[in-house]
């Protein structure tokens, strides 16, 4: 089949960096050069014909075609892994191929499962340059599809296996820059929380570094929340930051709670023609109330007055 052969050729062409959708209702395969490299576009009608052809004609090549068209097709990943077991791993080759599959379907669970398996078998041979490339690729996929669960999970596994590169790659600073432009990416904040926990449990940070980290998280969150006051992701992260204060800076818990309560008091319904501003204000009211209630229940607040506790308990939205 002509389009099948064309796609196979594209998969093995080192100039090709991506296989993308050409658009709904389109037919055929086209090539285009962009800033990063050659992109091959496949029309939706052609994609279905080629995929069905590949499934009806199983072979090593058809597994490759299936995976760049549908990275969720697990049997093809299994077949590929079996070939590697027989012939040995060419890490660079596998990274290039799985890049092609994951660029098209960046949130594919089966694709990331294969990527994790590659990391496992490559093991201690991973160089710092390969590590950096892997981190960059994870973040590329996380940018393509926000809250990309399995990409963030793989990134966390990489760092917990290679804690020695946490400081060198400045990952925490990188995450603060990340969230400032993607404030709804709750998964990136979960990644920060989990990685900090790993570092703290393994005594990777000394006490000053922990306090500095919490101070920077608090400051950057405050800036972000002043711009975007109604986001669930940032209020959820504030809960976590408050909980860390419970362990490391106990006096900070009530300070943060009082700040949250003040935001709730100021978030009266907005009288405005701008529906987005009205929605964000309503959302701020909801999340600030929930934040206060959550902290009251889950963190120790001995210095909070009874009046404030009653106000938080009664808070409605």
């Amino acid at each position: 089949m002509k389009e099948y052969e064309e796609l196979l050729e594209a998969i093995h062409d080192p100039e090709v960096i991506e296989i993308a959708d050409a658009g709904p209702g389109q037919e055929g395969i086209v090539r285009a050069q962009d800033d990063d490299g050659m992109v091959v576009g496949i029309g939706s009608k052609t994609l279905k014909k080629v995929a069905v052809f590949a499934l009806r004609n199983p072979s090593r090549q058809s597994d490759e075609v299936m995976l760049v068209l549908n990275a969720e097709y697990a049997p093809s990943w299994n077949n590929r892994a079996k070939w590697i077991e027989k012939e040995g791993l060419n890490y660079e080759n596998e990274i290039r191929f799985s890049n092609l599959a994951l660029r098209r379907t960046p949130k594919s669970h089966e694709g990331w499962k294969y990527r994790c398996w590659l990391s496992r078998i490559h093991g201690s041979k991973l160089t710092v340059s390969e590590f950096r490339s892997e981190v960059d690729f994870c973040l590329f996929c996380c940018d393509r599809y926000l809250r990309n669960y399995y990409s963030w999970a793989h990134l966390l596994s990489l760092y917990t296996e290679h804690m020695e590169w946490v400081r060198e790659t400045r990952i925490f600073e990188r995450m603060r820059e990340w969230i400032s432009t993607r404030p709804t990416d709750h998964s990136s904040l979960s990644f920060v929380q989990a990685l900090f926990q790993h570092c703290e449990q393994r005594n990777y940070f000394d006490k000053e570094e922990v306090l500095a980290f919490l101070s920077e998280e608090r400051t950057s969150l405050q800036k972000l929340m002043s711009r975007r006051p109604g986001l669930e992701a940032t209020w959820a992260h504030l809960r976590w930051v408050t909980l860390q204060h419970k362990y490391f800076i106990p006096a900070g818990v009530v300070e943060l709670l009082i700040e949250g309560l003040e935001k709730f008091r100021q978030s009266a319904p907005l009288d405005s023609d701008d529906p987005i501003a009205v929605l964000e204000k309503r959302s701020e009211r909801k999340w600030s109330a929930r934040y206060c209630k959550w902290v009251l229940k889950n963190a120790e607040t001995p210095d909070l007055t009874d009046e404030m506790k009653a106000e938080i308990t009664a808070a409605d939205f």
Partner: protein
Amino acid sequence: MSEEEPKKLNVEGTAKYIEALDRQTDTFEYWVTEHIRISGAYWGLSAMFLLGKEDMMNKEAITTHVLKCQDPETGGFGGNVGHDPHILYTLSAVQIMCLYDCVDQINVEGVVKYIQSLQGEDGSFKGDKWGEIDHRFTYCAFNCLTLLGKLNSINVEATVQYVLKSCNWDGGFGVAPGHESHGAYIFCCVGTLAIADRLHEINCDKLAWWLAERQVPDGGLNGRPEKKSDVCYSWWVISTMAMLGRLNWIDKSSLINFILKCQDPPGGIGDKPGNIADVFHTFFGIAGLSLLGYSEPDMTLNEIEPIFAMPPAVLSRLGITKRTPPPSEAAPKGTPGCVE
């Protein structure tokens, strides 16, 4: 049906949609899902049991196909004939045979040995020989072995400890210890603990609060913060709430309305309003409606048990004791179910 009228469940249309799925053998969707066919069969069959339409399904054809999917070497089941075994499809296979009361036709010892081979020393479970570790597989192992009456063939305590280690600061659970809390993984971990009768070891209030916050303004549920609502969380989240004894923390009528709006007009349910139906979301949408007690004057859905996702009558036939959820609490102020 106009936009203003409250929607009803299209029982006949949905039953016809499910029954027709196996005849659409020349579609792209049929081909690219061939590797998960056995799970598709479980979803379709279970939905038909809930609708009271199981007699529309071909028991002989389904059970014969299931038996062909068991790998004689490992004892596990693949997603289709000739496919590699995996714990996900092993559970689906056992569930189908339990629904049809013919589990004695499979090689039960083979299944047990296969699942035993997937347990790690730390209590985690791999999905298959390739070694992925994921709490879906924890739940599959516990559910499957309990259905077969063989839970004690694995190290239950090690797995309970592994699950408890996976509990995050927000009360939730992710794919593995330390990973982002996610509605579906929470179902898997809470289900595992419920089967082991160890729910008292987690903070049910904290977790239920996080789950209640999954209800978004359109009445539907998402699986984690900042995500859109999706019908499948009508199962993952509310079955967990039921296990925790806190189903009243959700606004039930809004959720019922959301699920009904996700119906595809000819029949079946999609993930979101306006999207095409698929058998996965059809089953979980109907299961959610059943758990929420949805009914019409001329129609009642059959019951579904929240831990095992099976009819209570089937579990009773298998001698599986009903688990009592932890004592329930009134919905606190701040959760959608609070009506103060």
